[in-house]
């Protein structure tokens, strides 16, 4: 891939969004729950940077980053949705776990572990029937790879050579469950062999490695060679959600992964000085601060519209 400052600024924007989300929750300015992707930014940006406008995305519950990195993403609409406002992507009906931007073929985050996997096969079928060269990327976690839906979806995509890129964002823990205790394979990508498709594991904190793996998978999908399973090994710095005491891992382990922070790592690839990185960080912060102002100035949904949208 060609290095780009845009990728760095998107990662910084994701980091700033997540930190702001955490702060807003702590201040009691949002309710509900959230799943923060701090530490996983390189996977989000690496995936979308290797795809094209018009491709499809199915996302996870830990999906703020993927949504922000996706084509045409508007951070104001993201923040407004996060804060439950009418101006949000889903008019405040979806919230953190269900942010979608269907106009950009972002078919949404998903509150169900593995929930997007069966749908991805259908998007792949649709692409094949419509004879376009789109691809569908479905993001899921290490935990989802133990769901039956994972098997059904990979098998279907394999037998029909559907253009689906399965991206397992392996952040090591399914809530508290260590992947080393819940799967008897070293790499989730090994499971590809059960479906006779290509599987690859990359360093999910290395933006270029993620980008290149996805670019190759997309090329294979567009050439009609069928699905690919790409595992991105990464780590979530925060707990599973807001109420996680993190009894299942050590501070040392978290600290070790924090030293593999994908953001300064990519700044080094770009040859930026610390001051330049800090300046970029401040720019991202300003964008997020402005998004909060935008969201807070957006009206709450009208109570009379609570039934709106149940049926088309």
């Amino acid at each position, binding site marked *: 891939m060609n290095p780009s400052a845009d990728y760095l600024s998107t990662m910084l924007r994701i980091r700033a969004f997540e930190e702001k989300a955490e702060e807003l929750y702590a201040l009691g300015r949002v309710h509900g729950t959230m799943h923060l992707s701090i530490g996983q930014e390189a996977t989000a940006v690496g995936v979308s940077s290797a795809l094209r406008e018009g491709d499809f995305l199915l996302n996870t519950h830990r999906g703020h980053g993927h949504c922000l990195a996706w084509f045409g993403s508007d951070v104001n609409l993201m923040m407004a949705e996060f804060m439950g406002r009418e101006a949000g992507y889903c008019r405040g009906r979806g919230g953190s776990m269900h942010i979608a931007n269907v106009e950009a073929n972002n078919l949404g985050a998903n509150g169900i572990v593995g929930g997007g996997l069966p*749908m991805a096969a259908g998007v*792949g079928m649709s692409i094949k029937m419509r004879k376009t060269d789109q691809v569908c990327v479905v993001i899921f976690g290490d935990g989802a790879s133990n769901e039956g839906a994972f098997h*059904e979806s990979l098998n279907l995509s394999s037998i029909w050579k559907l253009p689906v890129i399965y991206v397992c964002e392996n952040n090591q823990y399914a809530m508290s469950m260590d992947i080393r205790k819940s799967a008897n394979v070293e790499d989730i990508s090994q499971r590809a062999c059960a479906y006779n498709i290509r599987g690859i594991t990359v360093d999910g904190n290395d933006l270029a490695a993620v980008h290149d793996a996805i670019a190759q998978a997309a090329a294979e999908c567009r050439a009609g060679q069928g699905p690919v399973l790409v595992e991105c090994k990464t780590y979530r710095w925060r707990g599973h959600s807001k109420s996680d005491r993190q009894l299942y891992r050590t501070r040392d382990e978290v600290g070790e992964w924090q030293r593999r922070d994908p953001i300064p790592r990519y700044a080094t690839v770009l040859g930026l000085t610390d001051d330049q990185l800090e300046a970029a960080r401040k720019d991202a912060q300003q964008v997020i601060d402005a998004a909060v102002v935008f969201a807070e100035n957006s009206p709450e949904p009208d109570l009379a519209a609570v039934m709106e*949208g149940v049926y088309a």
Partner: protein
Amino acid sequence: MRELTYAEALREGLRQAMSADERVFVMGEDIGVYGGAFGVTSGLLQEFGDMRVFDTPISEAVIAGACIGAALSGMRPVGEIQFMDFVTLSMEQLVLQAAKIRYMFGGKTSVPMVLRMPGGSGTGAAAQHSESLENWFVHVPGLKVVMPSNPYDAKGLLLAAIDDPNPVIFIEHKLLYKTKGPVPEDMYRVPLSSTRIAREGRHVTVVATSIMVNRALEAATTLAAEGIELEVVDPRTLTPLDEEPILASVRKTGKALIVHEAPGTGGYGGELAARIAGSDAFDYLEAPIRRLTGLDTPIPYNRNLERAAVPQVDDITREARKLARGEY
């Protein structure tokens, strides 16, 4: 008018929809060469090829999910679940995804899909191939639930369901597949949410679903000879329900008998009874609202036990007669 079986009517509807709109495709287990477990899709593979007729692995979650994904990306899928019982393996995708996507996404997209499945008992298939699970879906806002009782409605409702922008659970009945009735050749629609008066009468309203409509009509014929006139009402779409014709009928007769095959506890009859009792039709009631439903039991294998577990014509006749005579 030309007569077709219920299965032939469904097949003609599928064929016409697929011919008219290349976005329409079918997928399911054994629906290709085999033609479907009940023969509904017989011949479609030969006519439309394997890029319109997809024989799937035994993967009910991905059948439902693939329909959703295809619907979200511009297609009009019609999935088949081989027996309604197996839809339990698709529930996450239907309940948590299909039903909610439009709402969760602020009304900015929709899931235009149909999932066909045969329900009901009477074939000796026992407890895991005889379920009537319609109320599981009725209870989920965002899904539509359709249960045709005759060949005409089967075709017309199917075509309307395929046109509909929402996920439609389309429940057929195994014992109806070979029943015959008049079916026009053109591509007509029976609108969803349009309750039908299957037979007019003035003494007792019988609201029945699916095959129970036919059994109620038989009971009506028997009772007519006794001077008791049943008004048989077929909701056709369970949700969203067109309730006014039901209420109007009860206002007219003052007596309501609700008949369905699914077990009574938590069943659709409770919903119908509550709607009648909670409306102005209550003022017209001359007797308690009665329900005649499947027993609260798994469907047994033994032929006699199986019959005893769900309402038969004689049961409806007896219950309706008692209501008409004021014996409650």
